[in-house]
């Protein structure tokens, strides 16, 4: 299901099934709420689950073909990358950073645990170390130390905003959630909006005047 379809499910939920080309809620506002609630739901799932199980359908994969060496530092390369969700002190949304073959992860710096920490032993003898970082002009990226000639990497992550992941086509690609999370997501977003709308008379005909509501109450 694409983001557009999920957004319309939310809209149908809020408007009790009445569809219209006119709406008091903007698409972008609903989508921002969908992205945020997705992060919250997945984060809650992962932090409450002892096994840290994650669904493949939450994860997005990015292949980068060339990196930058902005600092002119020895052995450092930076790949621009979207931000991942935060889970807890030990975990975040980065699932895999490493060789494009998908089975040789680089070792992460700064955090002691990660989802693939058990795969550390599989990493190459000459270890490449990485960590997420934001530079002074706001670019978010993955900094990799150990090989300044590195040109290709694969990153798998649960992104904060799935729309920002390169190669994601919002009009045709499935929004990165499974059916269970999608169901929770639609309910959560509907409830959030309805909570904010509570106390106001419903705008049943979306004309900003609540005329129908007044007629019904009269």
């Amino acid at each position, binding site marked *: 299901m694409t983001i557009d379809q999920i957004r319309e499910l939310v809209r149908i939920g809020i408007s009790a099934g009445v569809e219209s*080309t*006119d709406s008091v809620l903007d698409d*972008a506002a609903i989508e921002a709420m969908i992205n945020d609630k997705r992060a919250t739901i997945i984060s809650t799932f992962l932090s409450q689950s002892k096994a840290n199980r994650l669904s493949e359908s939450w994860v997005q994969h990015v292949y980068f073909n060339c990196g930058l060496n902005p600092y002119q530092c020895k052995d450092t390369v930076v790949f621009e990358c979207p931000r991942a969700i935060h889970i807890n002190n030990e975990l975040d949304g980065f699932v895999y950073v490493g060789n494009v073959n998908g089975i040789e992860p680089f070792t992460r710096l700064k955090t002691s645990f990660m989802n693939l920490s058990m795969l550390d032993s599989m990493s190459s003898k000459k270890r490449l170390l990485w960590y997420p970082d934001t530079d002074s002009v706001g670019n978010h990226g993955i900094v990799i130390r150990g090989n300044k000639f590195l040109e290709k990497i694969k990153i798998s992550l649960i992104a904060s905003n799935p729309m920002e992941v390169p190669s994601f086509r919002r009009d045709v690609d499935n929004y990165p959630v499974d059916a269970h999370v999608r169901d929770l997501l639609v309910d959560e977003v509907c409830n959030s909006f309805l909570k904010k709308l509570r106390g106001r008379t419903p705008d049943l005909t979306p004309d900003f005047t609540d005329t129908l509501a007044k007629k019904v109450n009269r």
Partner: protein
Amino acid sequence: MTGYNFYITLQEKVNKEYSDYLSPVKANRLMEDGAIRVIEDTYGKLIGMKEYEALSSLLVINYEITSFPINVNALPNNYTVLLAARPSYLTDIPFTYTDGKFYSDTHGLRVGDTLKLGAANVTVTEVRPRYFKIDTAYSSGTLSLVLTTTAVSDKVNAKNVFSTPTKYSPKFSIHYNPSTDVRSITITPQPSTVELDYLTRLPVAFDANDTATDLNTYYPDFFLTKVMDECVKNFAIRTKDTGFYQTSRQEIVDNP
């Protein structure tokens, strides 16, 4: 039922004492007024097949437009109300063509995507990270990806960052320009083409003198009955007959 038959039935339904008020000329105005009100009421409830069928001869569906902004007065069959606008946007795909393959690192295509090759539609048949193929022989020309979305109405009083239109959530608005005397539909951002669904004026007027045109060709019976009830009620209002108004209104309530 012809316009004349409609007029005779209407005369029978109203109080004979007021027959002076129902000359054919006045009846025509009454019938037009009644029809407009019923159309407006039905349009507001366009959620079931019955409402669509009632207005079927007034609906223009999938009318394609390629020049912008859209002058509503130039639309066929006398435009009245916009129901839906589905704009299409084209994005050029950069590529290098060699031996049946279109090489591109950033094409972002999926199998089954529709592309525009000049004016023709072609379909993507194979996609790899570095190249793609299409179902048509290629010699020259640019390829553009077609994105079709549904526009929502622009809210003049909502100018926040979330209400900024994009090609994924475009907006339409209807403005009158006093300098050109043109009422036009603007779609933001401007698409390459757009399909409009809109409501027109009555294709055939209710004419009390017309004994030839069968109104059933254009309007279903249940629509004509509603127009009749509306005309009777409006007649009661114009003659300021309170009792008649109440009975005619009750008839509408009993037969919604």
